[in-house]
C-alpha cells in the first residue's frame, strides 16, 4: 500500500504531499519525504554511480526505513516525486509505471494557467487523479 506521495520542487520545497494512511502520521511521513531528499541529491550529484542511467528519471529505491520503502523520481525540471510505500516487495516495473502516470498528472496540473510555478499544487482534480493512481497501484501489484 502506498503510504504517501509527494511532489517536491527543485528548491526542495514541498509542492504537494498527501498521505494515504488512516493513522495520524502526517508528520512522520513529512519527515521521511524530507529525509529522502538527501538521497535524491546524492544520486543526482554523483554522476559516476548513475552513469549508465544518466537520463533516467526513475531514481529507484532511495532508502528503506524500518517500515517503509521510499522511491524517487526526478523530472527534467528538477522536480522530485517521492513515493513511500509499506509494501516490502515491490516490483520496480510497478513503481516505474506509477511514476509515469503520476508525472502525467503533474504535468497536467502545472499546465493549468492559473497554477503559479513553485507554489503548492492545490488543484482538486490533481488530488483526485493522484488518489486514483495510488489506488490502482495496489491493484496492479496484486494482479
Amino acid at each position, binding site marked *: 500500500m502506498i503510504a504517501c506521495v509527494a511532489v517536491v520542487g527543485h528548491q526542495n520545497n*514541498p509542492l504537494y504531499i498527501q498521505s494515504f494512511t488512516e493513522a495520524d502520521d502526517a508528520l512522520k511521513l*513529512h*519527515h521521511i519525504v*524530507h529525509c529522502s531528499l538527501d538521497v535524491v*541529491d*546524492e544520486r543526482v550529484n554523483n554522476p559516476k554511480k548513475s552513469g549508465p542511467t544518466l537520463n533516467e528519471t526513475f531514481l529507484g529505491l532511495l532508502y528503506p526505513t524500518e517500515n517503509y520503502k521510499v522511491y524517487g523520481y526526478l523530472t527534467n525540471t528538477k522536480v522530485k516525486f517521492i513515493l513511500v510505500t509499506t509494501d516490502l516487495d515491490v516490483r520496480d516495473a510497478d513503481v516505474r509505471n506509477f511514476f509515469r502516470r503520476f508525472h502525467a498528472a503533474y504535468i497536467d496540473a502545472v499546465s493549468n494557467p492559473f497554477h503559479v510555478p513553485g507554489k503548492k499544487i492545490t488543484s482538486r482534480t490533481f488530488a483526485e487523479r493522484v488518489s486514483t493512481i495510488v489506488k490502482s497501484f495496489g491493484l496492479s501489484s496484486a494482479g
Partner: protein
Amino acid sequence: MVDPATTPLGKMLLDEITPVVMVLCTPLVEESCGKNGISLLQMLSPFCNFSNIDVPVRTASDQPYRLHKFKLRLVYESDIRHPNLEVAKEQLKQVITRTGEKELSELGSDPPEISDVVGRSESEILPSWFQLFNKELMHTVSFSEHEAFDHPVACLLVVSSEDEQPINRFIDLFNTNKLPSLLNDGAMDPKILKHYLLVHDNQDGPSEKASKILTEMRSTFGPNDCQLLCINSSEDGRIERQDNPWASHKSDASPSKHLGSFLNNDDFSEIKDVMQELASKHIIPYMEQKIRVLNQQVSATRKGFRNQLKNLWWRKGKEETSDSPNGPMYTFSSIESQIRILGDYAFMLRDYELALSNYRLISTDYKLDKAWKRYAGVQEMMGLAYFMLDQSRKEAEYCMENAFTTYAKIGSSGQQNATRCGLWWVEMLKARHQYKDAATVYFRICGEEPLHSAVMLEQASYCYLLSKPPMLHKYGFHLVLSGDRYKKCDQINHAIRTYRSAVSVYKGTTWSHIKDHVHFHIGQWYAVLGMHDIAVAHMLEVLDCSHQSKTTQELFLRDFLQVVQKTGKTFEVVKPRLPIINISSLKVIFEDHRTYASAEAANVRESLWRSLEEDMIPSLSTARSNWLELQSKLITKKFEESNICVAGEPVKVDIEFKNPLQIPISISNISLICELSTRSDEMESDSNSSTTELQNDEESKLLTTTGEMNSDTSSFTLSEVDISLGGAETILVQLMVTPKVEGILKIVGVRWRLSGSLVGVYNFESNLVKKKIAKGRRKVKSSPSNDLKFIVIKSLPKLEGLIHPLPERAYAGDLRHLVLELRNQSDFSVKNLKMKVSHPRFLSIGNRDDMTKEFPACLQKMTNAEQSVAGGNFNKMPQAVFSFPEGISIQGETPLLWPLWYRAAVPGKISLSITIYYEMGDVSSVIKYRLLRMHYNLEVLPSLNVSFQISPWSSRLQQYLVRMDVVNQTSSENFQIHQLSSVGHQWEISLLQPFDSIFPSESLFAGQALSCFFMLKNRGESSTSSDDTSSPSCLLGSDVSLQGTADTLFDISGSPLADFHAHERLLQSVSQDDTNTVDFIFISQPSESDSDSGISDPQHLFSHHTCHCSILGKTPITWLVDGPRTLHHNFNASFCEVNLKMTIYNSSDAAMFVRVNTFDSPSSSGQTSEATSPRSAVPSGNQAGWHDVPVLTDIKVTSQLPLNQVKRSSLLESVSPFIWSGSSASRVLLQPMSTTDIAMKVCLFSPGTYDLSNYALNWKLLTISGQGNEGETRQSSGSCPGYPYFLTVLQAS
C-alpha cells in the same frame, strides 16, 4: 593518510587498551592520602601517563622497538568485577544531566544559522561531552572475561609505615580470599606481577622507621619489588598549584586548589619516579617476557600444519558436546585464553602485527566452538589492529561489522559490547571521513533505551552534518528524533539543544508541518524551563498554522496562550503572525477642509468631488490674494508638504484583520499607536517664512510616544475596538485618533491584544510599499511616511449634515419631500453656505417655504394668484450652485433645516453626491473654508413605463393624435393614475373619450398595461415661446385628469415638478430641435389599497416625464383640403364648379417648395394604388401596432371605399367624372413653421359622390449644406398622395 595513532580512535585505544594495575592498600594508607582530599588511586593516577619514557621492547620478533608513551590503568581490587548495569546507567544519566545543566546558559541564545554550521570542523560542532559519555559507555563492559586487556597485569600492594607488622599486612593484602572473584574463579590469571609499596606519611614522624621496614620488605619480597614513598612532606598544607594534576580526576566541584595541599614538590617527583619505575622496570619487561613465553607456547601447540589439523579435528569432535549460548567456558589457562592474552599483551605493547596474527588464529577456533561473544571480541580487536596498522580498510570494517552483528546476535548480554564495538567502528569510520557510514552505525547502536539512543541519534545527526556534502535533511531529522528521545527521559535541556539546531535546518523552508512541530515543542520545553520569552518567540512561529487541522490549531493556540499567561506579563510582539494584517487595506481618512458626512462619502474618489466642487471653491489665487496674511501663505505651503487635520476631529484608519485559522480568535483593545508632538516654536517658524522646509519635527518637543490611551493628560485620544474573528474571517476595523492639541500627529502603527494576553504591534512604517492613502492629494514626490503624518491645526467649526428621510430604494418617478439637516457643534459661526448636487435630476433644492408646506397638497393646482408667485422664483439655471440666503447661520444646538425634493428619475443604481461649502466666521483661522461632502447610494426600481406616440391628425391641421402606453413594470405595486399634462403654452391636450369608459378601475396593477388616446392641439403660439421652453417658468401646460372622481390636478409649473422637468428635458434631449416636440408629464400615485408595502404612503407622487416627443409624421408637411362636402347643383344648366382651399403647413425647420399636382383623370392606376398604398403600408411599418386610422366617422367612409372603388372603376373606363380646373400644378415656397393657402377648383359634370384624391403634393426642402450633413436619415424631398376628399353633388331639383 594520517597516522592512526593520532586519530581520535587511535588516541582512545592508546588510552583505553593499556595494562591494568590492581591496587591493594591498607586503610591507613588511604587515611594519609585522604589528608589531601584524594584517595591513593587518585593520587597516583596522574602519574600513570608516561609521555616521555624511552623503553626498548622486544616481543616475539627479535627486532626491538622503543615505546615513548605508555599508560597504566590503576584500579582498586574491589573494582575488578563486572560493572553493575543499573549503576552504570545511573552514572550515564548523571553525565548527561550534568552536561545538560551546563548548557542551560547557552540555550537562551539564538540558534546558529545553518550556513554557519556547515563547514565547521568536527570539534566545533560536537559537544565535548560526547567523548565523556562514550567513554563511560565503554566502561560499562570493562572487565569482561572474554577479553584480556582488562585483566590486571600487575598488582600494587600498598601498606603504610604506620601499620603494625607491615610485612604481614603485605601478605594479608594479597590473600586470595580478598581478591576479586574474577581472579579466583579462573577467568583471570591470579599469578601476576606483585609490587610492594610502603607509604610513609611525613607528618607522622621521620622516615627512619619507614626505611627500616623497607629493608625488611626487601629481604622478604625481593630487593627489586619494594619501594618506599614518602608523602605529606609539607607541614602547613598551604601548597597551591596552578595546574593541579588531580583536578581532572576529581569529579565533584570542590575547589581543586586544596587537592594535594600537603604534597610538596619532593613528594611530587617521588610519586612520579615510583610510578615510572613501576612501568618501565617492572610492567613492561614482565609483559615482554610473558609475550615471549606465550608465543613459544602457541607456536609449539598451534602453529604449523600438523597442529592446525590436529586442532581442527579436535574441535570438530568437541562440537557436539557443548551447546551453551556463550560457547564453552574457557579458563585463563586454556590455550584459547592464552592466545587471547598474548594478542592483547601484544596490542598493549603496540606490536599490532603479532596481536593480529594471534587474534586471527584464535578467531577461527572460537567460531568453530560457537563461542560467539569471544569470537566477536576477537573480531573487534582484529578490526582495531587492522586500523592501527593502517592496512586493509575493508578488512577492518568487515571485522567491525562482523563483531557488531555477532554481539547483536547473542542478545541482551552482548548489547553493551555491541555498543562499544559500534562506537569504535564509528570512530574508525570517522577517522576515514566516512561520516555517512558512521551515521548509519550510530543509528544501529541506538538501542531500546531512550536516553542512550538519544545521544546516539544526536551523534548520528552530526555525522550527517559533517559528511561531504552535508546531508542537512537527515541532520534535521535525526536531531528531531534525538530530541524526542531526550524529552522522553526528561532531559529537556538536551531536547531543546537538539531542536534548536533543527530549527536552523528548517528555517526558511516551506515544510510547515515539520516546522510547526519543531517550533511548538521547543516552545513548550522552553516554557517548562521557565524561559518564557524564548518560548513565546517560538510559539509565535506556530500560530499561523492554517494548514493544520482544527484540533491542532486549537492545541497550538491554547498552549501558546497558556505559556503567555504563565509569563505573568504582557508580551509585546512586533508583527506577529496572528492575526494577519492586510496592510494593503490600510486606508486613512482625515478631514482637513474636506469633511465627510459619512464613511461612504469618504470612499468616493477625490476626483469626483473635485469636479463637483470646481466652481464652488475659491480658486487658489483668490485664497492667497491677501498677501499680508503670511500665515495662510505658509500654511498653504505646508498643505503641500503634509496632511492637515483639525484638533478635536478624529482621523480614521481602516485596516483589515484576517484570521488564518479555522478557530475563532478574539482580538481586543485594537487601537492605533500615535505620536503627537506639539509645536512650541510655531511663531518662530512663521516669522521665518522664507524657509519652505518644514523642520518642525526636529525642533519640536515630543510629548507623547506612548500608546496608552487612558490618560486625560494625553494630547490625543484613541478609540478601542474589540472584535472576534471567526474561522478564516476578515474584518475591516475602523480606528480613530482624535488629537486634542495642535502639533504634528504621526500614526505609527496599530496594537491589539490577542485573547487578552498577547499584545501585538504592527508598525505601518515597516512596510509602506503597498500602502495607499485614500485622500492623496498631489503627493507624488512626498515620501510615504508623510502620509501618516498630520499637522494638527486649531479646532474649526464643522458642519454635520444629514438628509432624511432619504429612501435607499424607490420606484422610478417617486417624488418626495426631504429635509436637509445641518448642524454645527462648535461655537464658531459659519457663513456663505453653498450647495451643489451631483445629480440635480434626482435631487433638487427646495424653497425655504416648502418646509412648512404639506406634501403633496402643496403641489396641487390652485386657482388664485399665489400660484404664479411661487413659480416665478425659479429662474435659476440647472446645475448651478445653490447659495443659501445670506442671513443663515448655523450654530449650537439648533440645526438648519432645508427642504429638498427628491425624484427617482431613472431606474438603476445611483450614487448621489452633495457638497456643501461654507466659510469660517472666524477670519483668523488657518483654513478659510470647508466642504461638507455627503454621499448616498440609492437604488431606483423601475415602476411605470410611459411612452407616447404622436401622429398628425390627418384630417385636421395642427392637431395630433397622442397615444399613451403605460406599463406597470413592478411586481407588486399598484398605481393610481392621476393626470397627464403636456408642457408648454402652445399645447392643449384633451381626452378623446371619457376616461371612465376605457379605464374604469383607475389603478394600474402590477404588470398591467394601459393604452389610451388623447388629442393634442397646437394653439399656434409656438413662435413666441419657443426660446423659453427650457425655462421652467413657462411650464404652463394643459392638464388632463385621468381620475374619474378627484378633480384636483397637480401643478406642473410648481417648484419641484418644473425643476425636475427642466432637468429631464436636458437629459433626455436629443440632437433634434425641440420645435416640433412636446413634453408630457404623467403623474400617478401609489394605490392606497396596498398600504402594507413600503412606498404606498400617499405622501408621495410619481411623476414621469417624457420629453421631446416628436409630433412629426412621415412628411414634414401637413395639409388640409377645405371646401363644401355636399352640393346641390343643377347639372342641366351647367357643370358644377367647386372651389376648394388647400392649407399647407410646413412643420420642418427649413423652408421648402411644395408643388401641388392634380391629375385630371384617375387613369393612372399607379396613382390610385399609391393613394391607397400608404394605408396598407402604415400598419406593417408601425411597430407600435397602431396607426392613424381615423376614428369613428372616417372609419365609416373607408369601409365604403371598396364599394366606392368598384363603382368608380366602372366609371373610369368611360369618362372622367370631374376635372381639375385652374392650374394643373402650383408651386409655393413655404417658410418653416408657416402655412399657406392654395385655391383649387374642380369641375363636376354629373351628380354623384366624388373622391377628390387624385392630386399629389411634391415637396422639397431647401437644405442648407451644413444642415444636410447632420440628418442623413431625413428626407430632403418627397411626394404625398392626396387624402380622400369626398364630395357629393346632388342634382338640384
